[in-house]
């Protein structure tokens, strides 16, 4: 569980006459992660695709273009029989392609025509304002016509040039639209003068007739086109509805056949033989071997070979760092976890698939992540709301695998929030453990669960203390001498959680280094940090109370001495392992631990906001009817916003604690994803 599925390196050798049979069998088994053959030599060349490859790719291309034109969605719950789909494919593909191409080209022609018409009716506007037929404003030999808009009065300017002119003008938008007619010989000067007075020439219109008539005909044409476009779109929609099953199922079949036909491109082939190398999960090796031998009547050779260890890309170069030895195996990585925690694998994959010989942290992630989430949010009502919302969305997005994974995680997280909500006694920011006194306290002064909370608990040496833990109080002994855990205690608690989480990270890091680079590297690189961390914690555990209470120092206190010794041993190991550069990283010891205080801090801000909303509601509630309405609005908006923040902030924060603080101690990620040669059919079956 803590490491990925063990794999066997497999070599398959056969004669070319059984190559196609082998490909089909391998594809159906869906077990072998094929290593592409790239190093060609004298005898072995990269194989050539099967003869069927070209027609298959052509068909696939056609089908995909139809699919994109029709906008066919992938989420259709169907299972079609393969033979039926193949028959339909032969019969339908050609004609469907023709119909779709015809319809889509008509659609794009209509769309561009509508755009053109819209443009024309925009151009027509100034002519409408002038009330002049557009064809009268061009095509003269002895006079020049300028039609356009301007914001200045141009008549005096034109008078300065010539008295022989005709000017029509009308108000238009924020300025005027004008049509100026002058003799050709002063046209240049008139044009220059116009340009200086913000004149913008109107585009010429090819249409002729009264502007009102032109508009009418443009609008009729546009309405006709739009009607037709609507019809074409609905026809395309009908086609999509009718053929969606056919499209997705035949695409799947074609994908499968194309993959098979192109498989030899990944094999090494000589004149008469072929060789396939790859990886298969260890428990499945015998299944693969037996199946292949049976289907080819024992005319194929399947064997395990010993994989060669090699340094991962970007790893420390052994020549530069002498004590580093590489034992890494770069096999593809398949998770080996119980189904229950599969959703968490998606979160680990976001950071990077584990490497083959690295610890797979999924199970630890699955346990700790919801606990962190719950600790941060820690509110019964918010937890319940998230649970209900999640269940609703889960029902709505039944066929979306990605969302289903995320929502499964959210369900666990919301349950954890409800649990911590009880521990913190919080319900929508109200303290539900508080008894109701004079209509105050509890949840809105209506319900109180104070009788559920024990007033005095003793567990071993700890106690007596009481529940709930108070996130908004400093904490301390109450009047009965019972301890109330408050912010200070929770702050220390989050730091302890941090130290434990980090130590776990170092322990896993030790295991990884041991496996990949041997004991010496593991001690120098991991024990060093763990020792310094523990030493530091021991020293702080002694120093902090002394500082707080201004007590006297005892330099021979065993705790302080052990801490110092551990720290110094760790520091020496670090110098041996990472050199002086390691010293620069020392501050991360402090910042990593303190980073865990966000578990409290982010939660505090959420309770703080809820508390503020409730206080405002309380104040408004006492101010008559309008106040009550105001209170209701503040309640709804305030808690909705806080809930939205409450959903994602704890998620991001606990994710970050894992990715940054925890993973940095042991996890590199970047393993190759196990992708067996085969296909997970969704729409078809044999």
């Amino acid at each position, binding site marked *: 569980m803590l490491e990925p599925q063990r794999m066997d390196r497999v070599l398959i050798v056969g004669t070319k006459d059984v190559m196609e049979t082998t490909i089909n069998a391998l594809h159906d088994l869906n077990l072998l992660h094929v290593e592409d053959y790239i190093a060609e030599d004298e005898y072995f060349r990269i194989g050539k695709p099967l003869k069927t490859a070209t027609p298959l790719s052509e068909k696939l291309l056609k089908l995909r273009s139809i699919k994109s034109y029709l906008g066919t969605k992938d989420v259709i719950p169907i299972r079609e029989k393969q033979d039926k789909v193949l028959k339909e494919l032969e019969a339908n593909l050609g004609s469907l392609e023709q119909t779709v191409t015809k319809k889509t080209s008509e659609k794009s022609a209509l769309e561009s025509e509508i755009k053109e018409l819209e443009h024309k009716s925009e151009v027509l506007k100034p002519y409408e304002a002038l009330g002049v037929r557009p064809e009268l404003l061009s095509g003269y030999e002895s006079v020049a016509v300028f039609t356009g808009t301007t914001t200045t009065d141009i008549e005096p300017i034109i008078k300065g040039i010539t008295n022989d002119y005709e000017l029509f003008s009308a108000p238009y938008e924020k300025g005027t639209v004008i049509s100026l007619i002058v003799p050709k010989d002063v046209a240049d000067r008139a044009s220059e003068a116009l340009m200086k007075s913000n004149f913008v020439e109107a585009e010429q219109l090819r249409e002729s007739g009264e502007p009102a008539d032109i508009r009418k005909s443009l609008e009729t044409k546009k309405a006709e086109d739009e009607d037709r476009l609507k019809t074409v779109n609905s026809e395309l929609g009908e086609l999509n509805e009718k053929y969606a099953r056919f499209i997705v199922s035949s695409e799947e079949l074609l994908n499968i056949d194309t993959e098979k036909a192109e498989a030899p491109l990944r094999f090494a082939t000589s004149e008469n033989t072929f060789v396939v190398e790859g990886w298969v999960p260890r428990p499945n090796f015998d299944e693969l071997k037996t199946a292949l031998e049976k289907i080819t009547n024992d005319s194929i050779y399947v064997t395990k070979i010993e994989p060669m260890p090699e340094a991962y890309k970007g790893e420390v170069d052994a020549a530069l760092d002498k004590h580093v030895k590489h034992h890494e195996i770069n096999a593809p990585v398949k998770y080996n976890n119980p189904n229950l925690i599969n959703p968490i694998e998606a979160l680990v994959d976001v950071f*990077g698939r584990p490497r083959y010989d690295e610890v797979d942290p999924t199970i630890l992630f699955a346990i700790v992540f919801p606990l962190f989430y719950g600790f941060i949010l820690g509110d019964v009502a918010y937890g319940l709301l998230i649970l209900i919302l999640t269940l609703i969305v889960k029902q709505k997005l039944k066929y979306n695998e990605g969302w289903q994974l995320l929502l499964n995680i959210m369900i666990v997280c919301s349950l954890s929030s409800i649990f911590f909500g009880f521990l913190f006694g919080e319900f929508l920011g109200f303290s539900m453990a508080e008894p109701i006194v004079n209509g105050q306290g509890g949840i809105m002064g209506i319900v109180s669960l104070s009788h559920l909370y024990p007033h005095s608990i003793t567990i071993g040496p700890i106690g007596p203390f009481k529940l709930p833990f108070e996130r908004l109080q400093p904490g301390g002994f109450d009047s009965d001498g019972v301890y109330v855990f408050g912010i*200070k205690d929770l702050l220390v608690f989050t730091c302890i959680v941090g130290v434990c989480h980090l130590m776990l990270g170092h322990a896993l890091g030790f295991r990884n280094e041991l496996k990949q680079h041997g004991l010496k590297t593991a001690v120098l690189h991991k024990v060093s940090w763990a020792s310094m961390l523990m030493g530091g914690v021991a020293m702080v555990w002694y120093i902090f109370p002394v500082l707080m209470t201004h007590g006297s120092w005892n330099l021979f206190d065993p705790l302080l001495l052990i801490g110092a010794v551990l720290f110094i041993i760790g520091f020496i190991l670090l110098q041996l392992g990472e050199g002086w550069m390691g010293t620069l990283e020392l501050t991360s010891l402090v910042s990593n631990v*303190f*980073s865990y*205080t966000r578990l409290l*801090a982010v939660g505090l801000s959420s309770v703080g906001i809820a508390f503020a909303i409730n206080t405002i509601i309380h104040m408004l509630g006492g101010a008559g009817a309008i106040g009550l309405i105001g209170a209701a609005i503040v309640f709804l908006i305030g808690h909705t916003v806080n809930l939205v923040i409450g959903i994602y902030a704890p998620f991001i924060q606990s*994710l970050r604690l894992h*990715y*940054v603080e925890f993973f940095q101690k042991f996890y590199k990620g970047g393993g190759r994803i196990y992708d067996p040669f085969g296909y997970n059919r969704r729409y078809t079956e044999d």
Partner: protein
Amino acid sequence: MVDAITAIGIGLAVGLAGIGTGLAQGPVGAGVVGAVAEDRSFLGMGFVLMAFSETVVIFGMLFGLLLMFMA
């Protein structure tokens, strides 16, 4: 619970640390979003890069809390 000057101190500790983090995280965030848009597999690494500067504000908050309860 706290006197005025401590309260101002707490405000400064959290506020200035927040500004510092903001100044640092802005450009890093823009870079990360760009990188993720190019290649989704950068998401995990992006998270880590974003987180480096975030530590500053946690320190601010921590000192704020220390001031609040221990001064």
